[in-house]
């Protein structure tokens, strides 16, 4: 399931919703991305996430389908926020549930790696010395690339 929203989310409630009543789940992996107070060396006071409504949902749904094709998953949840966030705020939640831990852990890792380069979001950071757009990082490209032929 995909949710693109401005509001915060409740990690515990979201995770319980995923596993409740399904006793064939053996493992649930999750990742929560948060706004850090530092961009490189510079302190930041806020981060604004711009996104492409419509395309974002489509891309995330495609990512979910890709994960479900690669691993045997009981459930997948991706929540991605947009709008103005402050350090410590949650940005993204990825949670995957499977009968087996390996499938849950790997697919969760895969999804967050792919989100970094394939989800249409753009981040603007407010620093003391003005606003700056977050650049795509080469490490994120290689992290996504790593999953190209797997499994």
């Amino acid at each position, binding site marked *: 399931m995909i949710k693109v929203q401005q509001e915060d989310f409740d990690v515990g409630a979201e995770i319980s919703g995923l596993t409740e009543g399904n006793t064939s789940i053996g493992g649930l992996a999750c990742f929560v991305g948060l706004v850090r107070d530092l961009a490189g060396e510079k302190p930041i006071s806020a981060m604004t996430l711009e996104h492409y409504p419509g*395309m974002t949902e489509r891309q995330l749904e495609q990512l979910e389908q890709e994960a479900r094709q690669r691993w045997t998953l009981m459930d997948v949840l991706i929540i991605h926020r947009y709008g103005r966030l402050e350090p410590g705020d949650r940005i993204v939640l990825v949670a995957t549930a499977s009968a087996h831990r390996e499938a849950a852990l790997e697919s969760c890792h895969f999804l967050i790696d792919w989100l970094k380069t*394939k*989800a*249409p979001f*753009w981040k603007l950071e407010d620093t003391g010395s003005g606003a700056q*757009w977050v650049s795509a990082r080469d490490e994120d490209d290689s992290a996504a690339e790593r999953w190209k032929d797997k499994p």
Partner: protein
Amino acid sequence: MRLLYFGWVRAKIGVSGETIDPPDGVDDVRSLVDWLSARGGGYGEALGDTTAIRVAVNQELAELDAAIAAGDEVALFPPMTGG
């Protein structure tokens, strides 16, 4: 044709989107970008270096040589930074 701009492409151009009637010969993304870029000003700054630009046609990622036609929704933006 509906154009959408995001991230610093939007910031440099100064609008988040516009509806255009592309002239003859503008039949793929590359020719569209060249045509917009030739307007100069913010367009030139935003779109001058095509290696820095990513594209979606009708909300699907596409390459610069993707064909486009009247009625399409074309989005131009910097590399995505999701997650």
